[in-house]
């Protein structure tokens, strides 16, 4: 059963399994891929992720993987490239989100793209430009010199314009990233980010492992989204092996994903108050988050629920008393969140900082392929858990009637409002899932399918988390690629700060709270 989208000549087949709807297909040439990208862009689609793989040892050349998000779900395209000169047309002119992804792919696998921005992205000089860590014959890659590398930042000239370099080491204990502000006085003229300081070779580490080992690595790509990564990884593995997990396992997964969402929103809402010097907010939200995490620790055996979602199902089960406790906690926390929301909403000083700060509008968000909470705060109704025309959310969300939280202002206040709404909606979902928990098995046995491949998509608290897996002939991981929504959101932050002044940047940054680790890999 094949179908085509946008009248493009690429035959697509729906992926098996119980995950988010994904159609897979093969692009015959770079031009076909480019033409599909243009059609997807014209139909309001977005670039979800892009990665490359070396398949020379499997008897091929190189392979480019591109995933597009469209109204009906995701289209996962593969493009085979020759072994001697792997090159494909630049997609960044169509989807700006491709810029950094293409550069990272070039740095890691050595697949080139023609034209566009050719600066390195993940390669900071720790390895030579003609050595590619993700090629199967690359070796360990030790013993390279690590000279200080220059990076060609875009310069802003003119009377009084100057630069403020910030990071990668910051005054607070946060992840490393470099921000180059071009300013006049306090006004920001341009912000350019340089990331990649946390590159630790996650993808190389996953290659050659069995599925269960890969899961532990995927769950540690970005610790605040460990459930989302584990679910996306498991969904990809299940699709690769043609297995569907039991209904009870899916409900337990949703329970964990929503608890992860609430925990992160609680922490960030407190931090947002603190960044505006309202430490009272931080203390209150931290207390709620701590209660929340302690219950995680007690019921799930881990405060962040790491390694609880596994390929084939889940690694634990909850009894009726535990589900009762979850429902009770939802009621208690919901009351407090509503009270705190009233305090935030009525605090003139706080609202003055939040409102009109860090605006991105819906057009820009679409152009940047933005997903998740930040996109919904611009008024885009895009939530992988909710029904929309032509799209069926994956189980168990299909039966829950998720109401996506949106706000049209696009500023920090909008992102705060969306976070509050999402907490309350997640509390409702948690209650429904806990009360309607299906009975039965929590895990099915899975035999790794030789040569299988799959893509898992999960609506995490930050946005869309994707994991793509290709298995080799022995059923081990040939190539796995985790994609963090931060790839799309970091460039949005560069735009969000443009109308504002330097001291507002930390607040805007916190309202997105993006992952460094998740995209540096």
């Amino acid at each position, binding site marked *: 059963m094949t179908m085509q989208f946008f009248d493009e000549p690429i035959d697509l087949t729906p992926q098996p399994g119980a995950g988010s709807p994904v159609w897979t297909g093969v692009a015959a040439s770079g031009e076909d891929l480019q033409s599909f990208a243009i059609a997807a862009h014209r139909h309001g689609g977005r670039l979800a992720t892009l990665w490359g793989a070396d398949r020379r040892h499997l008897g091929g050349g190189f392979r480019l993987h591109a995933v597009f998000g469209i109204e009906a779900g995701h289209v996962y395209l593969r493009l085979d490239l020759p072994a001697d000169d792997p090159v494909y047309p630049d997609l960044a002119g169509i989807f700006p989100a491709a810029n950094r992804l293409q550069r990272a792919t070039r740095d890691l696998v050595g697949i080139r793209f023609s034209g566009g921005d050719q600066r390195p992205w993940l390669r900071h000089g720790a390895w030579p430009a003609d050595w590619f860590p993700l090629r199967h014959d690359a070796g360990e890659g030790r013993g390279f010199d690590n000279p200080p590398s220059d990076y060609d930042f875009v310069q802003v000239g003119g009377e009084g314009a100057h630069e403020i*370099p910030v990071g990668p080491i910051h005054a607070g*204990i946060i992840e490393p990233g470099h921000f180059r502000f071009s300013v006049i006085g306090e006004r920001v003229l341009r912000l350019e980010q340089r990331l990649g300081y946390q590159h630790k070779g996650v993808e190389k580490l996953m290659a050659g492992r069995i599925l269960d080992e890969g899961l532990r690595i995927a769950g540690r790509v970005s610790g605040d989204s460990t459930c989302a990564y584990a679910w996306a990884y498991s969904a990809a593995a299940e699709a690769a092996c043609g297995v569907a997990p039991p209904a009870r396992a899916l409900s337990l997964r949703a329970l964990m994903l929503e608890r992860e969402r609430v925990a992160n929103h609680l922490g960030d809402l407190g931090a947002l108050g603190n*960044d505006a010097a309202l*430490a009272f907010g931080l203390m209150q939200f931290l207390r709620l988050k701590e209660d929340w995490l302690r219950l995680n620790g007690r019921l799930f055996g881990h405060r962040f629920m790491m390694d609880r979602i596994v390929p084939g199902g889940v690694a634990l089960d909850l009894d009726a008393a535990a589900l009762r406790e979850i429902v009770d906690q939802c009621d208690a926390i919901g009351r407090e969140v509503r009270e705190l929301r009233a305090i935030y909403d009525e605090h003139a000083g*706080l609202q003055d*900082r939040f409102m009109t700060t860090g605006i991105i509008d819906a057009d820009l968000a679409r152009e940047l392929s933005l997903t998740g909470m930040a996109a919904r705060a611009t008024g885009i109704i895009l939530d992988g858990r909710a029904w929309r025309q032509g799209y069926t959310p994956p189980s168990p969300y299909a039966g829950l009637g998720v109401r996506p939280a949106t706000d049209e202002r696009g500023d920090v206040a909008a992102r705060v409002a969306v976070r509050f709404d999402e907490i309350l909606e997640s509390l409702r979902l948690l209650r429904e899932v806990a009360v309607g928990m299906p009975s039965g098995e929590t895990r099915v046995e899975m035999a790794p399918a030789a040569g299988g491949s799959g893509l898992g998509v999960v609506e995490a608290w930050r946005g869309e988390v994707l994991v793509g897996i290709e298995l080799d002939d022995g059923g081990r991981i040939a190539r796995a690629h985790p994609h963090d929504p931060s790839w799309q959101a970091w460039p949005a932050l560069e735009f969000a700060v443009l109308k504002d002044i*330097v*001291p507002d*940047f930390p607040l805007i940054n916190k309202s997105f709270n993006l992952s460094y680790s998740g995209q540096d890999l």
Partner: protein
Amino acid sequence: MTVAGLFGQLLAIVLALVLAPLLTGWVNQCRAWMQNRSAPPLLQSYYMLHKLFLKDVVLAHGTSSFFRTAPYVIFGCMLLACAIVPTLSTDLPLAPSADTIALVGVFGLARIFISLAAMDIGTSFGTLGGRREMLIGFLAEPALLMVIFTTALISQSTSVATIVETLAHRDFVIYPSLAFAGVAFTFVSFAENARVPVDNPATHLELTMIHEAMILEYSGRHLALIELAASLKLYAYSCLGLALFFPWGIAAGENPLGLLAAIPMLVFKLAVGGAFLAGIETINAKMRIFRAPEFLGTAFLLAVLGLLVRLLLETRV
């Protein structure tokens, strides 16, 4: 100059050095309680100073001797300010050396030194902080002067000791002008001492800092002196505010017993003032930096209103 006067002066200086870190510790404690968290010990500021004095100084490359001398100058300025402001007694041998206008100048001198030292290291954060400090300073100083002129008009003198003596030891009179001046002075104190809602002394966000951005590169005894100077500044401002607007309890002239009786009164007033400061800091968010001119403009306006009220309503022609 009398022996008792000299004793009173020395006692005031020693008391400032002892009480200033305690006041900072007390404000931090109150703030922690109001935020529903357990508080650091009252002596935490002392522990910090002790630690910093024991640590080695690390200097950034390319710093001049100016960077190294600035902490001593800033500390000296703040200690002098504490000596001029009548805390226990109005009989201060040092008082004639500087009146209120000179006091504002002493604060200004410290500000110039800390800003220049911040620029001396040549990092963008130092310059950023120095620039913002000057923005706040040049708006706060006129407002502070206006407050002082209002009180000077009442006592017909710009000497702090005379002003306080007039307000504290004459017959009790209600001056409406002082109400305006008092509110204006509170506004200025928040801006000058880098407190919420103008600055946030507890932040780690380097891009939002004002005072902290200037001292990012300081370490060891230099940082200790700057921290102590910041405590002394808060103490001096608190004592000036208390002396101008709540002067009761300050000993008049040469009265050794009055001097001793003034100490518990001062501690009590500082404790109340510190709790008030912590309360304001807890319920407010930090304003956008370009709201600071509005905030300080309001302070200036109130101070001018106080001056006009004094001139138009309280003066018998």
